[in-house]
């Protein structure tokens, strides 16, 4: 498979070559595909372009179904730092943006843009970047952002966003360019170096300048003499100083970044350390090629070179558009009917394609049609005999048999201790294992279990933190409220008064309803901030219907559960004193109404919320409640005093219908100027007068309002109005205060009566 004669003809390295631990010599099988030049793949009828084409975040879609796109047009923009853009590989129409099976071992679907090609392959507008000027200005960021928007990722297989590797450091010791291409069957980098060495070297020059690299080493395995020659020639013709092509012995996996760095610089990258920290950065030849194409020709990454090999008639390399269905590529290569499956990537590190309709991705360097001739059925797995072959072969100097044992027994902690995550899944261990154990499968299993457990733990930690914060927040709010109430204790008596406000009435009413609902079993009775705007009747009607449905369902649920609130809702319900007080007021009102009408529909609500209300009722609240009781008593005695709800306001109307009001009522109380308010004030004053004179009246109460509304209104006033009752200057306030004083007087009288 190697051509020893050619190897001998290579000029000697000017740079030393070191060794890495282990490694194996699988049959290379490169001769199948490395003879023919790269040809463009035919334009497929449709392209399926996945939006996740790099490590990190999926790109954000920027097109819609039906859009006409030009070649190179942005399909999806980078989302965040660790993400790159995705572009239209050719011109055509976007026919679908949906989940489709992608080239991934899971066989799961991912968001893809499907483009029906129009065959014209016309370029859209390209926006070139004056990268030379940017480089001269030391403006690396512009170039990096540009590369991100051009969708440049590592094409060696890891698809790591390249712009992240070009970050400005103050000088790099060695820039390693990876042309080793150690995996059997794959020849795309070989062909690229042979045919486009000039552009690769131009790319190397850019990267070297960006990173301020003192030395550039291009590592190529000695089974690619033509590529070595071409690259040497191109490098010699360029003006990059201190750049060398280093021929490394063919030994899998010399193309692993850590292995190549060791080979070329003798630096070992320890576990958990990035190579940049050692002054080394590694780029694949195809990546630097696309960097050059992007900067010089404003060409985003819309195609790549793929090796089509294995059981096909015309094995070779094609330049295929990203998104080309693999089936189309296989047809082009003359797929044989006895292929048993298709490997995406190399035979050592690749995976079986779940479906040949998947679109080509930027990671897809090779597609192998699998047949018994090249891939004989593996011998059955036997027990590990602890021969140590795997440890000898492991390029990462791990103990594969121990990792296997821990992974197999799901002892993940131990596996991690033994550096499972340093394993590059090269498969060298499985290749040499005399017991034919599919070691890498176990490592992959263990790694993904550990990742899943870690992300579950992260989610749990986040939830715990947020839950604790919520508890803290509620406590703090409660304290603040208590402090506010205490601060207002002085102007208080004036506030506990009879000026009446339909808004509030409605709110209280809503609170009562909710209390009732809570009793029925489902809704926690802790809501006050009264709800929504509903401008049009239509929506209001809809909402009412929805609420009724919900209420019915809840009732059913409550009946089934027969148990009231879940424990978790209880603390929430118990938290807010002010709310508790309001509810209490509502309860009082309900009781009063019950007494008055003997109906008693809402009275049970009192029981439901009693425990809640018990939570700390300060004297101020007590005063409010007393006031409410007074009002109720007064009503009972036939002195209905509540002209509050003026029938010409929509709000008043709503107060009658229960669920509805929650939706419609909450118009924020405005300062005293509007007529509605004025009417209220008048009414309040009248009420006060009426009360004083013991005369029964209340012309403003609409006839269809239940008797309880008045008392509810009063209760609401008592419960909630205090925010508004400031020492009064304007007539509105004055009226209120007067009313309050009246109420206080009445109360005093009543108390005296009671005591007597």
């Amino acid at each position, binding site marked *: 498979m190697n051509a020893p004669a050619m190897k001998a003809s290579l000029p000697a390295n000017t740079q030393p070559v070191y060794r890495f631990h282990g490694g194996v010599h699988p049959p290379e099988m490169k001769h199948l595909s490395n003879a023919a030049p790269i040809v463009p793949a035919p334009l497929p009828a449709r392209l399926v372009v996945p939006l996740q084409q790099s490590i990190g975040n999926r790109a954000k879609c920027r097109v819609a179904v039906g859009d006409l796109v030009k070649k190179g047009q942005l399909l999806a923009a980078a989302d965040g730092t660790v993400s790159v853009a995705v572009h239209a590989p050719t011109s055509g129409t976007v026919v679908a943006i949906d989940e489709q099976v992608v080239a991934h071992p899971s066989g799961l679907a991912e968001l893809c843009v499907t483009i029906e090609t129009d065959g014209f392959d016309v370029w859209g507008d390209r926006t070139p970047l004056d990268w030379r000027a940017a480089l001269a200005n030391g403006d690396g960021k512009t170039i990096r952002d540009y590369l991100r928007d051009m969708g440049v990722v590592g094409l060696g297989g890891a698809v790591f966003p390249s712009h992240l590797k070009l970050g400005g450091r103050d000088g790099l010791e060695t820039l390693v360019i990876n042309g080793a291409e150690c995996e059997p069957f794959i020849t795309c980098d070989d062909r690229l170096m042979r045919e486009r060495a000039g552009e690769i070297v131009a790319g190397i020059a850019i990267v070297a300048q960006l990173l301020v690299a003192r030395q550039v080493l291009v590592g190529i395995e000695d089974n690619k003499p033509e590529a070595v020659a071409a690259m040497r020639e191109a490098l010699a013709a360029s003006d990059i100083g201190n750049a060398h092509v280093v021929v490394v012995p063919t030994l899998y996996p010399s193309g692993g970044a850590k292995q190549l760095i060791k080979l070329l610089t003798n630096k070992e990258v320890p576990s958990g350390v990035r190579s940049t920290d050692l002054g080394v950065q590694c780029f694949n030849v195809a990546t630097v090629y696309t960097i050059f194409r992007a900067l010089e020709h404003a060409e985003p990454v819309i195609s790549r070179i793929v090796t089509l090999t294995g059981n096909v008639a015309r094995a070779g390399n094609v330049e295929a558009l990203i998104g080309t269905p693999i089936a189309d590529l296989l047809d082009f290569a003359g797929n044989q009917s006895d292929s048993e499956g298709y490997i995406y990537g190399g035979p050592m590190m690749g995976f079986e394609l779940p479906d040949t309709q998947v679109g080509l991705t930027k990671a897809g360097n090779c597609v192998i049609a699998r047949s018994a001739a090249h891939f004989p059925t593996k011998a*059955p797995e036997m027990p590990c005999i602890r021969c140590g072959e795997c440890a000898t072969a492991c390029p990462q100097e791990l103990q594969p048999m121990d990792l296997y044992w821990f992974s197999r027994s799901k002892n993940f902690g131990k596996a991690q201790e033994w550096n499972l995550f340093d394993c590059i899944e090269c498969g060298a261990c499985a290749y040499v294992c005399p017991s034919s154990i599919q070691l890498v499968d176990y490592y992959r299993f263990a790694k993904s279990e550990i990742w899943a457990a870690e992300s579950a733990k992260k989610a749990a930690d986040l939830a715990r933190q947020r839950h604790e914060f919520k508890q803290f927040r509620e406590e703090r709010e409660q304290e603040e409220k208590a402090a506010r109430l205490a601060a207002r204790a002085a102007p208080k008596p004036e506030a506990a008064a009879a000026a009446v406000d339909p808004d509030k009435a409605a709110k209280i009413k809503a609170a009562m309803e909710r209390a009732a609902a809570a009793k029925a079993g489902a809704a926690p009775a802790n809501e006050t901030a009264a709800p929504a705007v*509903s401008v049009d009747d239509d929506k209001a009607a809809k909402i009412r219907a929805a609420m009724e449905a919900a209420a019915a369902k809840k009732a059913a649920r409550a009946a089934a559960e027969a148990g009231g609130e879940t424990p978790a809702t209880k603390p929430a319900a118990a938290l807010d004193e002010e709310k508790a007080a309001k509810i209490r007021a509502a309860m009082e009102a309900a009781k009063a109404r019950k007494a008055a009408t003997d109906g008693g529909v809402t009275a049970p609500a009192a029981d439901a919320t009693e425990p809640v209300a018990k939570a700390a009722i300060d004297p101020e609240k007590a005063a409010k409640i007393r006031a409410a009781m007074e009002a109720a008593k007064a009503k009972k005695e036939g002195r209905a005093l509540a002209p509050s709800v003026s029938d010409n306001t929509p709000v008043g109307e709503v107060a009658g219908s229960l669920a509805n009001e929650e939706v419609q009522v909450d118009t924020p109380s405005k300062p005293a100027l509007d007529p509605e308010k004025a009417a209220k004030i008048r009414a309040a004053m009248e009420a006060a007068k009426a009360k004083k004179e013991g005369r029964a009246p209340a012309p403003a109460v609409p006839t269809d309002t239940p008797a309880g509304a008045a008392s509810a209104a009063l209760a609401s006033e008592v419960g909630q109005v205090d925010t508004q009752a400031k020492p009064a200057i304007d007539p509105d306030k004055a009226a209120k205060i007067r009313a309050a004083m009246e109420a206080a007087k009445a109360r005093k009288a009543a108390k005296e009566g009671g005591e007597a």
Partner: protein
Amino acid sequence: MSFLLAVALMAVLAVILGAVLGWAAIKYKVDEDPLVDKIDAILPQTQCGQCGFPGCKPYATAIADGEADINQCPPGGDDGVRKLADLLGVDFKPLNAENGEEKPKSVAVIDENTCIGCTLCIQACPVDAIVGAAKHMHTIIEKECTGCELCLAPCPVDCISMQPVGETVQSWKWRYPVIKLKVTA
């Protein structure tokens, strides 16, 4: 004399050391019961209350105090019970069906056209994963939703539904390698 001196010395030493120990006990007091934290770390933090306690921490406390059994947390599933059994050195027992059953992880989704912005769900959410202002449409931050279902009941228009989180390419896990057995006749 020297005997008395020795006794006195020892006594003084005892007092000093005692004081140091006493001070250390106050200064380096461990506020939280470490066992509670260990249990809490195993619980899934869904904060759903299905265990009969208002949140995971109270349940963890109850377990630590021996007031609750280890098989009351449905979101944790049998796996969670097993971990608790390991930690506490007790026997595994299957999940108590009275507390509910293990369901695939879901997140709540608000039908934003129906939402009336009543804020009830915000108050019910144990992890503040719902955003919205009064009278405006609310929405759930999917990433932060624990799937506790506590927001479903309070919604007056029933516009919140639970949607299972399916497996994605990102969350997919490699399966445990299975060895095919050859059938020999």
